[in-house]
């Protein structure tokens, strides 16, 4: 019966929420693109002009000219313009990248390799985040809660034979391992293959991203000398959301699972169900504190 309630809830409440969430992301991507693209083109043109002039008179180059030149490069770099290569590089604010940026803002990752440089873009970014962050929290919360509610049906274990308990815990372990493999281990390997990082760097990138720290020293899809498929960055943004939801599900589950395993171990050691039941209530109180410290 909790199953049915859960399903109707998933259909009735989550779908509009999901829709609103996706729409909000798309809206953000569009507005950012509109606001930033021209400024970026301007800044890029200016930088190209600087570079050409430098090349023209590099025979009479001195220290100060070089310093000024480097300063210009740095400023351009901070604004997300990569001076290597030519002006036909893919734009930083095309749709896929804007989507990626919106995703990093609402999840509070904030890589910083892309940042709005116009005043309008900055103001919009503030208000976008003001609404988007709570929305993101509610969304992830709900995703985690729903999946965990499914798993909580495993709570009623006392009236089942021991063999099916073992099966269930094996199934749960398989589910968790597979999910972790598919969501947390496999994508970093793909990223490190595509970007030419070592696996350690790929893992570091995944960790810095999913912990929402987001330094931006490693960001997918930024190398101008590589040709990515067009949806690469959007796929990366979707991976980030999936990973965050998975973490929201798994992290609070870990103490519960540990407790279950220890209880099963006790059972297999030959303690009666009564004795096994006693620590259960104990253990259910404890995770209230553990999820935040584990």
């Amino acid at each position, binding site marked *: 019966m*909790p199953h049915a*309630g*859960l399903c109707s*809830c998933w259909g009735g*409440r989550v779908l509009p929420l999901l829709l609103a969430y996706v729409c909000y992301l798309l809206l953000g991507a569009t507005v950012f693109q509109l606001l930033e693209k021209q400024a970026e083109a301007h800044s890029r043109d200016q930088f190209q002009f600087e570079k050409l002039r430098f*090349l023209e008179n590099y025979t009479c*180059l001195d*220290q100060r000219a*070089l*310093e000024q030149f*480097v300063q210009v*490069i*740095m400023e351009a*770099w*901070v604004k997300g313009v990569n001076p*290597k290569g030519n002006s036909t590089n893919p734009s930083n604010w095309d749709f896929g990248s804007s989507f990626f940026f919106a995703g990093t803002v609402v999840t*509070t*990752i*904030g*890589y*910083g*390799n892309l*940042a709005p*440089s116009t*005043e309008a873009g*900055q*103001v919009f*970014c503030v208000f976008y*985040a003001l609404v988007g*962050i*709570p929305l993101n929290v*509610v969304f*992830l*919360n*709900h995703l*985690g*809660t*729903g999946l965990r*509610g499914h798993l*909580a049906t495993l*709570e009623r274990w006392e009236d089942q034979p021991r063999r099916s308990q073992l099966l269930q815990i094996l199934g749960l372990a398989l589910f968790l391992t597979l999910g972790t493999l598919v969501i947390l281990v496999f994508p970093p390997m793909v990223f490190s293959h595509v970007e030419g990082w070592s696996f350690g*760097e790929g893992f*570091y990138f995944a960790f810095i991203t999913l*912990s*929402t*720290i*987001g*330094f*931006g*020293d490693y960001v997918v899809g930024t190398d101008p000398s590589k040709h990515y498929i067009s949806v690469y960055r959007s796929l990366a943004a979707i991976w980030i959301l999936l990973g965050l939801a998975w973490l929201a599900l798994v*992290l*609070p589950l870990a103490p*519960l699972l540990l407790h279950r395993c220890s209880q099963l171990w006790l059972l297999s050691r030959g303690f009666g169900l009564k004795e096994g039941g006693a620590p259960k209530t104990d253990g*259910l109180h404890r*995770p*209230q504190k553990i*999820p*935040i*410290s*584990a």
Partner: protein
Amino acid sequence: MLQSLAGSSCVRLVERHRSAWCFGFLVLGYLLYLVFGAVVFSSVELPYEDLLRQELRKLKRRFLEEHECLSEPQLEQFLGRVLEASNYGVSVLSNASGNWNWDFTSALFFASTVLSTTGYGHTVPLSDGGKAFCIVYSVIGIPFTLLFLTAVVQRVTIHVTRRPVLYFHIRWGFSKQLVAIVHAVLLGFVTVSCFFFIPAAVFSILEDDWNFLESFYFCFISLSTIGLGDYVPGEGYNQKFRELYKIGITCYLLLGLIAMLVVLETFCELHELKKFRKMFYVKKDKDEDQVHIIEHDQLSFSSITDQAAGMKDDQKQNEPFVTPQSSAQSDSPTSP
């Protein structure tokens, strides 16, 4: 009867003191943890940074020597190196040599931005050891930070939100919901002016080329823990008292984060918002313990607020003055 009452009050006193002691140790441990992180980061990263700096200087000298026969590929190569270095926070400009990115105060600032998951990215660990340590440090440190913030926010909220609302409710007999709404809005305004407008004004004075909007943008990006890192204070070339400034910013960020969480929780406790939030959650037909487990979410603001709300309901049983109200309030996480 009297004996048992006295005993229970004694126990209560001990309990409360123990909580205070634990809290003190927690604060101390947290500060120590920050300092420890700063020391390790500093010792791991400083030599590497020095190496990189020397390398860059050498590269630049060589470039200057042979710039008569400069060609496009050489220039591109040079630019590539410069940008790679600037990505890691090392500058080749001659007047930038005074500031170290990994001196102690900067490392402290870095550690605090890692633990609050702000992550500006203006300085990042360069060596493999630094990266590995960064992962381990934050695996332990981020849950620790959450625990710490929860404890602080819980205590602050009692004094800032619960008590004043209750006082106005009892003293003048206003309706509780009305008082709560007015109080939440007022608190929001005060916090925004104290932690956004005033610091933004200060930053726009202290930083050379930031205007007020940019400073405000920086404050917001920082306190929402987005941390884009396009504006980072204390990175100018000619700033005096840089160490003091960095420590001040670190304190500001932590205090600001706490203030944001307190405001957030104040708003979350509003009856209307609670109803709104409940709309999105699964209908509960489980007992209270499971509800507690299920409601918590890692790495998000709401986890802290929910946790704090749960804890407070427990703690309110210990406060005789508040007890009459607890029945009215304690319906927060569990009522259908």
